[in-house]
């Protein structure tokens, strides 16, 4: 419901660059956005267009839409043509720095000439490479891809979503999302049976990406209670999604561990009579409503805790997860999933061991899912040569009610 297929003003947007890197930009009308060595573009030029198209920045700053199979992969897919013959050998290739007859300065000069497109520059660079035609298809491919990443002035706006947010944080600082891969996030969402209307108890140390993913899957219905260890939870990632604040306020409630385990320690904010409220100063009245609402929210959360009111427990935390499970399990409803994510298998193993001993959890299992991407170019299909290590692990169990009579006789 907060997905818009067209590029909207004043929203955040992911911009994919030829280097396969992502950049997050905020699209403020009338501004110019620089994407580093790839040039810059006018925000207004892309507003209202659909996401997903690739634009090339022209010499006059205008944007041309690239058509895949025509303009795109000029060299790489174009390899179907004469340029790259896979059975060629590089028997006579002598590839030294002298093979390139263009100097760095000359290339820099070309880059400054606004009349030359990235493709033109690459053409020049190839022509300047004495030994290019002697390279094997594979080294040509690699060489061209490197040059493309360097010279093509192209970019692709993509809409913000939990998957891209993961990519973004994984690249920036993977600790901020506990090294969670997209496939592990996806698995977590399915194992936790996340859907509209659910009420989830969540511990989210992924800067809010996990909460963002839940929001995507819940479409405005249900409740996310975020338990945390500081004064406020860190859900920074949410700001990148184009999600109304009202929706966030309604669906996401936070509670710290002290409030969770010692609700009696919170000072009550008693209800005031209409007369009392009417007699308050406007400033104090606002403060009263804020505090009173916060108090009611906490009571609501504590009611859910006391009445096994949650439809699932979802933990992605560096605070000892085994204790968190042990001490919050009572709040989870019967037959609901308990899912704990960690960067480390050792941590989920400990949680699983605890669950094995705890009759309140059925059949804990540790899961690992790893996606392997392929270079998907006909004639030269192979898995990506490198990929991120890590990705994390999760343990999944089902909350059950042990029957003491039964277990006594077993």
């Amino acid at each position: 419901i907060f997905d818009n297929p067209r590029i909207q003003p004043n929203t955040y947007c992911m911009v994919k660059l030829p280097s396969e890197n992502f950049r997050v930009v905020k699209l403020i009308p009338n501004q110019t956005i620089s994407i580093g060595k790839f040039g810059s573009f006018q925000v207004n030029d892309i507003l209202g267009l659909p996401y997903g198209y690739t634009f090339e920045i022209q010499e006059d700053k205008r944007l041309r839409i690239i058509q895949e199979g025509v303009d795109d992969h000029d060299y790489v897919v174009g390899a179907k043509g004469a340029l790259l013959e896979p059975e060629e050998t590089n028997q006579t290739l002598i590839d030294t720095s002298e093979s390139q007859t263009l100097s760095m300065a000359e290339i820099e000069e070309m880059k400054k000439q606004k009349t030359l497109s990235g493709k033109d520059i690459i053409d020049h660079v190839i022509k300047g490479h004495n030994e290019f035609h002697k390279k094997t298809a594979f080294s040509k491919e690699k060489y061209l891809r490197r040059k493309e990443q360097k010279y093509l002035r192209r970019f692709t706006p993509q809409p913000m979503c939990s998957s891209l947010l993961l990519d973004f944080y994984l690249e920036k600082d993977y600790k901020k999302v506990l090294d969670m891969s997209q496939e592990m996030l996806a698995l977590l969402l399915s194992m936790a049976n996340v859907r509209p209307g659910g009420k989830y108890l969540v511990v989210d140390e992924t800067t809010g990406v996990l909460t963002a993913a839940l929001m995507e899957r819940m479409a405005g219905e249900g409740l996310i209670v975020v338990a945390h260890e500081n004064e406020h939870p860190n859900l920074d990632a949410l700001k990148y999604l184009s999600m109304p604040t009202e929706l966030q306020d309604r669906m996401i409630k936070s509670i710290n561990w002290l409030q969770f385990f010692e609700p009696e320690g919170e000072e009550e904010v008693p209800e005031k009579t209409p007369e009392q409220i009417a007699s308050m100063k406007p400033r104090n009245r606002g403060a009263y409503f804020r505090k009173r609402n916060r108090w009611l929210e906490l009571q609501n959360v504590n009611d859910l805790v006391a009445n096994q009111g949650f439809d699932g427990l979802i933990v992605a935390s560096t605070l000892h997860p085994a204790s968190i499970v042990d001490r919050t399990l009572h709040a989870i409803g019967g037959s609901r999933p308990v899912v704990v994510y960690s960067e480390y298998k050792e941590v989920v193993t400990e949680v699983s061991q605890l669950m094995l001993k705890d009759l309140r959890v059925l059949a804990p299992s540790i899961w690992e899912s790893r996606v392997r991407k392929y270079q998907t170019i006909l004639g030269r299909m192979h898995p990506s040569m490198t990929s991120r290590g890590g990705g994390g692990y999760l343990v999944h169990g089902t909350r059950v009610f042990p029957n003491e009579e039964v277990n006594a006789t077993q």
Partner: protein
Amino acid sequence: MFSAYKDTIEDGDLVLGWMTRTAIKPIVVEKKEGLFNTRYGAFPHRNMDKYGAQLGSMSKQGFIHLIHPTPELWTLSLPHRTQIVYTTDSSYIVQRLKIRPGSTVIESGTGSGSFTHAISRSAGLAGKVYSYEFHEERYNLAKQEFERHQLTNVIPTHRDVCNDGFDIENIDVNATAVFLDLPAPWTAIPHLERVIDRSVVSRVCCFSPCFEQVVKAVQALQEAGWVDIEMVEVAAKRWESRLEMKRSLDEAITRLRDVKARRETGLAKRNARIKVETETGVEEEESDERDAKRSKTESGHRGYNPWGKGQKIKEGDESFEWTEVSKCEQEIKSHTSYLLFASRLPKLGEEVFDKDMCVRPYSE
């Protein structure tokens, strides 16, 4: 059932009777007369009150757990699990195809209908799932099951989509996500153009076991104008946590010392006995044999036995030291299928471009 949790089990409800990880049976509750018979005992439906309960059998000899169905657990309860899309694949497909509440999804074929449950859950009541199956018997079974499970957002269709396409009379399908689990997806791909929503990005996933199928599908996708074509594989492993006994080197040395000492004592005794025997004329060979037997008994489990050899030790027994380890399942699914993803970008109106095929220059 599949669109919200219940706490109390009522007549007509679906319960998964969980015996073991590999023995999970669906039960439709009939409180009056229903009886769930298993090798763990008999369980009258009238005792089934609460989801999550551990229920003892009538004879108190065994128990089951009463589990609320979810698409994932339902998958585990299916008798024939060779044709299903496993959760590690299905969850990734849902995420990549951006199946969200309100999405319109095409699935072909329906198969066992297990993935349909997952898509239906994620598309929510505001979404739609058009599920096509060419095998009539399977279509009928699935249709009945969807009705029983109240998957009201699923529209099953009996159809050979490869030949006859995806159009449904009087309905504007307008899907944004497509899942093709077909032997020849390339024959179905050209038909998609008519049923996807061309005002937004549409996404497809072809699920094919063989490499050669993927190659043909890539060609078909390229020809049909799909972009961002990417093949991936999902590799999944399941692990169990275990405790392994920690056996220390010092204990091993102490044990060897003990064995040696007892052997030497035995030897001394034996020598003394040989002396006696020689004097009494008893054959040495016989005595050797007897000694061998005796020393075997002695060096058995009577001496220093730090790790309870020969005893039945329960994992985690507090008399011993343990290391927490994880053990991979014995047999892993090393391949399910290749997942081929692609996107179809929305149609652009002509007003977007200027004469150079550039985006129309901005004007206030």
